[in-house]
């Protein structure tokens, strides 16, 4: 005897696979979007990051300003082009450049004076930036600071401008509003610099053959992406395929709910209710078939990501399967809940889609949650999709063990039970008329 539960489950699975066009869209759409997002967020780790477009407006033309522009041009993170003020402003406004920096006339001399005398007025470097690229502006500002310090100090200790600034400063030192001890110290420093410069001019200093240098950053940075293992590159596709998998599985959940609401309006539902079947069999079989199809879609997506983009389950395979299964069950129960709470398919569809999109967005499926404000990052831990996302990240590119999947699996399973119980309680069993 074929168990009615199995018969109903098998029928739903058969209907899912029987609709080839819908099946193709269900799988092709997340693959396409995940591939795009994965590429944007680092891809397979081999692509060069894009350089920030910067315009250099040098109104000074001094040795210092030329040195600053040259330093920035050589920076591997920037793509610097010379410009003038108005065209630079227009280019930033049109989005053709992210930042334009303007070095005003007299900057070199003013910066030199301010270098030794904190009380002197400081010249300004204007940064014109595209407000939609705030993060890039901060990055350019940091790089600029380093190059300005290097260029100004180099000129002060080695260049012609530096010599005259030191000479002038020594002459005016007595008029500085400064404690006698500080003046004495500064005088010693300036006289030392003057001696250094004189030695370089006469060629008697030991630095004769050495290149001209100024203050430099006293450290180097070695960055290391901490992934599942040494030498294992971060694969952006692992996150994007997880994210899009979650999104489209939740859409499947909506389909389940709307499908049930639509079925209620047909003779099929009457026929099912007329048969000697428990409510558990009717809803349970629907949930089971939905979980099976959801799991199938997730497996296909990750198989594609593995073959095409080299996404690997770097952590526990059991944990990965557990997260996928728990999320599939949670989605199935979510679908039943939609059917239980919805009045009509038409009214329910729009609300469900909006709710799902919010859930997906806040789960970090589109962009990682670290770009969210801190309060939002804390808030999103209540969203089940976030647990699935964290669990999939942990089992794929983070390469963590089963213990890291245990909590997401438990939370998702608990959520599935809660949604399922609520759906059974709230489901309208009487047919309409």
């Amino acid at each position, binding site marked *: 005897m*074929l168990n009615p539960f199995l018969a109903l489950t098998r029928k739903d699975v058969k209907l899912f696979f029987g609709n080839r066009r819908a099946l193709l869209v269900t799988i092709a759409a997340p693959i396409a979007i995940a591939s795009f997002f994965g590429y944007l967020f680092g891809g397979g780790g081999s692509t060069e990051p894009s350089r920030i477009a910067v315009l250099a407006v040098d109104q000074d033309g001094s040795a210092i300003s030329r040195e600053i522009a040259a330093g920035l041009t050589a920076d591997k993170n920037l793509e610097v082009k010379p410009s003038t003020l108005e065209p630079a402003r227009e280019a930033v406004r049109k989005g053709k450049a992210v930042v334009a920096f303007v070095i005003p006339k007299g900057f070199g001399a003013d910066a030199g004076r301010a270098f030794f005398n904190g009380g002197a007025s400081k010249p300004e470097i204007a940064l014109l930036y595209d407000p939609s690229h705030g993060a890039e502006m901060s990055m350019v500002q940091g790089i600029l600071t380093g190059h300005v310090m290097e260029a100004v100090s180099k000129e002060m200790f080695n260049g012609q401008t530096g010599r005259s600034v030191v000479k002038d400063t020594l002459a005016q030192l007595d008029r500085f509003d400064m404690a006698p001890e500080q003046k004495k110290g500064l005088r010693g420093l300036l006289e030392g610099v003057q001696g250094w410069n004189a030695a370089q001019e006469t060629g008697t200093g030991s630095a004769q053959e050495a290149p001209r240098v100024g203050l430099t950053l006293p450290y180097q940075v070695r960055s290391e992406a901490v992934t599942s293992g040494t030498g294992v590159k971060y694969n952006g596709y692992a996150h994007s395929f997880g994210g899009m998998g979650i999104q489209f599985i939740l859409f499947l959940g909506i389909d389940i709910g709307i499908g049930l609401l639509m079925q209620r309006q047909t003779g099929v539902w*009457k026929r099912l209710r007329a048969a000697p079947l428990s409510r558990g069999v009717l809803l349970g079989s629907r949930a089971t078939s939905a979980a099976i199809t959801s799991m199938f879609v997730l497996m296909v997506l990750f198989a594609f990501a593995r073959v095409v983009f080299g996404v690997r389950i770097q952590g526990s395979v059991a944990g990965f399967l557990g997260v996928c299964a728990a999320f599939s069950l949670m989605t199935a129960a979510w679908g039943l809940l939609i059917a239980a709470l919805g009045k009509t398919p038409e009214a329910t569809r729009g609300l469900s889609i909006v709710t799902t999109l919010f859930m997906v967005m806040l789960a970090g499926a589109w962009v990682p949650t670290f770009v969210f404000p801190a309060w939002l990052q804390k808030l999103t831990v209540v969203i089940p999709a976030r647990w699935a996302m964290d669990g999939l990240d942990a089992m794929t590119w983070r390469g963590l063990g089963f213990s890291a999947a245990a909590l997401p699996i438990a939370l998702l399973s608990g959520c599935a039970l809660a949604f399922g119980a609520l759906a059974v309680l709230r489901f309208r069993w009487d*047919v309409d008329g």
Partner: protein
Amino acid sequence: MLEVTALRKSYGDIVAVDGVSLNAGKGETIGLLGPNGAGKTTTVSMIAGLVRPDSGTVLIDGRPLQGDTDPAKRAIGLVPQDIGLFDEISARENLHLFGALYGMDRANRRRAIDAALDLVGLAERAKDKVAGFSGGMMRRLNLAAALLHDPQLLLLDEPTVGVDPQSRNAIFDNLETLKKRGKTLLYTTHYMEEAERLCDRIVIIDHGKVIADDTLQGLQRLLPVANLLSVELEESKADGLRPEDVQAISGVQSVEILGGTLRIGIRDLAADSPGILRWLVERGYPFQHVVSERASLETVFLTLTGRSLRD
């Protein structure tokens, strides 16, 4: 087989079914006749256990249905008004599924499916997807799906809605076969000719209430006339003809003049019609066409409610 007593169901302020009672013995075919919105489908839904009544009882073979999984549900076969089939699988797969829901094993299912497909004339389309079926074929398969578990009581909720005359006749032939096999049929319709053709007894329902429950002959006895004579006058002229003059002719029960046509109600077609026709000719109202029709359920309904079945 079926005893329904004082069923009542309301949705908010709307009373859909208001104290409906009816009985159907084994092998009997009961027609539940009423216009759209009369409460027929709600009554059937309550009998099948799909809708919980506010009050009243339904007994199947002397006992009420108890819960969703009551095995007594196997005694009922429901043919819903809306097609209750899955479009994207074949006719045979649909029937396998519905057979499985009633706990039938594979061998029994196969036999029952073959028999049901044979009965409704779809054996050759068994492997085709339902989505490719015509409306009439879907209706026939809708009937077949209710027969698999060999129920004693068939609830047929307007099973011929929207089908072509050929398919309707085919469904009627199927139902007559089932009737001959001793099945009890409860048949809802708003087509009087269907009820006239098939039913042993007719329950007329309107605004949720039973307004008549009798055989066709019994219902017709409620009417003041047994036949209607329609006389189309030559050149469609009835100038000067007064209804009260016609009413005075022996045997005439009612008179209605619609343009050039007279509609005359009489009790005895053979005895009364010659005198009426002769009277018309003698008074200078020659006619070109005469049609007689027996008073129908439509007339009964009109008489009982003051409105048409199709309103």
